């Protein structure tokens, strides 16, 4: 069937609603990348077998869903409508869960254990990780089946598109987006409404919409989550954008490393096309819009808009100077509006309730929520959606549960490899584009990596520069050669060969690269250098002058030895040592030969008496 009018859509939704048994329990099993890595596909099969065995098909509904954004706790199973949250579920738990659903009970050992309250928590919204978030974009993640357009429609999907077609002119749509205060969620934070307006104003027979789904920042996976968990929300946003700027063709550029996202998008587009929500004369209007997918081929720089365009055109992904901006001359020289996945996913929310309503959440200059991917040395790693303007402290400690394994907070790295490291004195900073820039970092796509006292800031900076150097497209000299020279200096410092002038050289290079690079990759590549020298200069100086690594990370500067007072002579470390560097008799003190030691860390992991020391 095909929707030939808005009434067709509304009637379809009504019929779907009539088919729903409101009080029938639903077992949703997360099928995001994280949970499938922990075996949720096999788990689903086991649930299907159990329900079939017990003849419960008419009493319990099984649904796939995802991603909840709490992947470390996967596989995640959510019981609806009560919202009971089960984590780390295995095949052995299936019978108990099914039984508990029928008996309206609970399987205690699968509930989330809050270590601070020392209590198991039953409902999703009991869990601080979730109840302190404001999930607007991620609201339906984990509750709807991402491969079912019916589920999307049942939960209000495509109502915004219908409203945009029926009640709003293209100018009015743009006005709502402007009023909402939405800024691009890809990192640059350009006002979305303004971008749409500028593209609309271009007079051309052909315009394009592009969704940038090349989420390349290491440590970021919010776009993946949206694409895998609620792909239709992105499609709906794109179609509304096409309506607003007068485009009939859209592309989603997805990175190759996200095969599941590509699969889900293909299913979503195909289903939408069958119902006439994508294609010719949408919902009986004169508006037509088609969407195609282009897969990336493994180049971080293709997240930059002009490099992305070059890639779609079949060329090497090299940026070009701007102006002209894509809004004026983009894909094949035509006006093009490029937005990030999260940006598009916000659009249906804005159109449904209006820009004014949307703007009630957030900070003064940036409205709405932002999804952060909180990872690193923190207790609760996962996706955190909060209003812009929330303090860093609240995200890391209240939602993230603080630094794990009893270590102390050192810094938080935001914005991916183009960002900076923010130390503890700024934990009360409200997270916003401008506030982060003031302290030497950036919002970026939303990556937030927590670092503890065992992180070496020099080694981390070396790591970031090796990434950006590797991904540099090579077109412009400052980035191509500049990042290489920076990397060489950082390599020297971590190897204990640093010199006095190295810091001055790094700062000078950083300034030149920042000021003269052709694109955002080069312009932001020096940020880790600038921010770590700004806040952790003493660590650099210890590496350079004392040839020591305080965090005990840089291999060339550390030594492993055994504390005689603690060693019990159990010989376990000697047995595990891959190079035979440890000697000692049973029940006698052991010793590490520094000549043979390769600092692999196996002895440190093995020793049960904390007798192995690294300094």
């Amino acid at each position, binding site marked *: 069937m095909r929707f030939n009018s808005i009434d067709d859509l509304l009637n379809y939704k009504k019929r779907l609603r009539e088919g729903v048994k409101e009080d029938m329990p639903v077992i949703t099993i997360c099928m995001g*990348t*994280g949970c*499938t*890595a*922990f075996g949720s596909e096999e788990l689903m099969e086991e649930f299907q077998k159990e329900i079939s065995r017990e003849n419960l098909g008419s009493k319990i509904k099984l649904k796939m869903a995802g991603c909840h*954004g*709490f*992947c*470390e706790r*996967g596989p995640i199973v959510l019981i609806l409508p009560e919202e009971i949250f089960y984590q780390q579920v295995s095949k052995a738990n299936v019978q108990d869960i099914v039984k508990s659903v029928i008996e309206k009970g609970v399987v205690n050992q699968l509930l989330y254990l809050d270590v601070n309250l020392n209590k198991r928590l039953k409902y999703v919204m009991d869990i601080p990780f979730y109840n302190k978030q404001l999930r607007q974009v991620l609201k339906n993640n984990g509750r709807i089946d991402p491969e079912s357009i019916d589920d999307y429609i049942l939960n209000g999907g495509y109502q915004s598109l219908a409203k945009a077609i029926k009640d709003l002119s293209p100018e009015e749509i743009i006005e709502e987006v402007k009023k909402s205060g939405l800024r691009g969620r890809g990192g640059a934070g350009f006002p979305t409404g303004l971008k749409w307006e500028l593209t609309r104003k271009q007079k051309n027979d052909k315009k394009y919409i592009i969704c940038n789904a090349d*989420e*390349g*920042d*290491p*440590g*970021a*996976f919010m776009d*993946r989550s949206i694409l895998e968990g609620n792909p239709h929300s992105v499609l709906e946003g794109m179609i509304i954008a096409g309506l607003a700027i007068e485009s009939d063709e859209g592309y989603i550029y997805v990175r*190759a*490393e*996200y*095969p599941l996202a590509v699969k889900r998008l293909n299913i979503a587009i195909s289903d939408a096309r069958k119902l006439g929500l994508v294609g010719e004369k949408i919902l009986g209007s004169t508006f037509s819009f088609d969407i195609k997918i*282009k*897969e990336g*081929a*493994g*180049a*971080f720089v293709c997240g930059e808009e002009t490099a992305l365009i070059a*890639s*779609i*055109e*079949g*060329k090497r*992904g090299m940026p070009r100077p701007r102006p002209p901006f894509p809004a004026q001359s983009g894909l*094949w020289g035509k006006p093009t509006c490029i937005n990030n996945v999260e940006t598009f996913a916000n659009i249906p929310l804005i159109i449904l309730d209006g820009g004014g309503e949307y703007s009630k959440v957030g900070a003064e200059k940036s409205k709405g929520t932002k999804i952060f*991917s909180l*990872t*690193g*040395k923190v207790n609760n*790693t996962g*996706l955190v959606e909060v209003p812009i303007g929330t303090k860093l402290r609240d995200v890391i400690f209240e939602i993230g549960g603080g630094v794990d394994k009893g270590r102390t907070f050192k810094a938080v*790295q935001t914005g*991916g*490899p183009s960002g900076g490291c923010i130390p503890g004195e700024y934990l009360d900073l409200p997270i916003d584009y401008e506030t982060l820039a003031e302290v030497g970092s950036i919002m970026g796509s939303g*990556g937030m*990596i927590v*670092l503890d006292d065992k*992180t070496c800031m020099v080694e*981390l900076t070396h*790591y*970031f520069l090796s*990434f950006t150097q*590797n*991904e540099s*497209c090579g077109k412009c000299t400052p980035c191509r050669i500049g990042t290489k020279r920076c990397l060489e200096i950082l390599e020297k410092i971590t190897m204990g060969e640093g010199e006095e002038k190295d810091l001055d050289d790094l700062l000078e290079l950083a300034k030149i690269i920042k000021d003269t690079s052709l694109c955002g990759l080069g312009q932001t590549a020096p940020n880790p250098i600038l921010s770590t020298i700004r806040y952790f200069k003493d660590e650099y100086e210890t590496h350079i002058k004392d040839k020591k690594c305080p965090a005990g990370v840089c291999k060339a500067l550390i030594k492993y030895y055994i504390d005689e007072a603690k060693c019990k002579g159990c010989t376990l470390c000697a047995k595990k040592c*891959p190079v035979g560097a440890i000697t000692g008799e049973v029940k006698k003190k052991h010793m590490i030969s520094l000549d043979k030691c390769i600092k*692999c*860390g*196996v002895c440190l*992991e093995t020793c049960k008496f904390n007798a192995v020391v690294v300094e």
Partner: protein
Amino acid sequence: MRINLKKLDNILKDRKIEKGSRRASSDLIPVLQEAQEAYGYLPSEVLKEVSLRLKVPLSQVYGVVTFYAQFYLEKRGRNIVRVCEGTACHVRGGKAVLESVKGLLKIKEGETTADYKFTLETVACLGACALSPVVMINKKYYGKMNKQSIQNTLKTY
């Protein structure tokens, strides 16, 4: 070894390539991706045929193939082991996992074992950061890896 171009022929037939338009080159990357999926890598005979059929100069095709990390000009192993080198994985011990794999398979990044069983690659980020350190083998993800678990996992292949 002669490369059978039939697979490539089928790929090109399935696509409605706009002949003569300047847009023909926009099919280049998707065609190369499908060809690599079919052949396991991109033999030079395939590149030459792609160049002829899409009317894109071979130098341009070669430029594209060597620019993107996903394309390979040499035969690879039956199992591709991708160790994630993203920030979250790096901070949680990803380097040790990589060293472990290198030691077990006795190859470096980008290399293939002599029996063509494994190829080792590193990826900047696989987007499964909450499970760090992450390793991907073919299309399967493995989370929370350490030196022992990666050894056990590789044994299953």
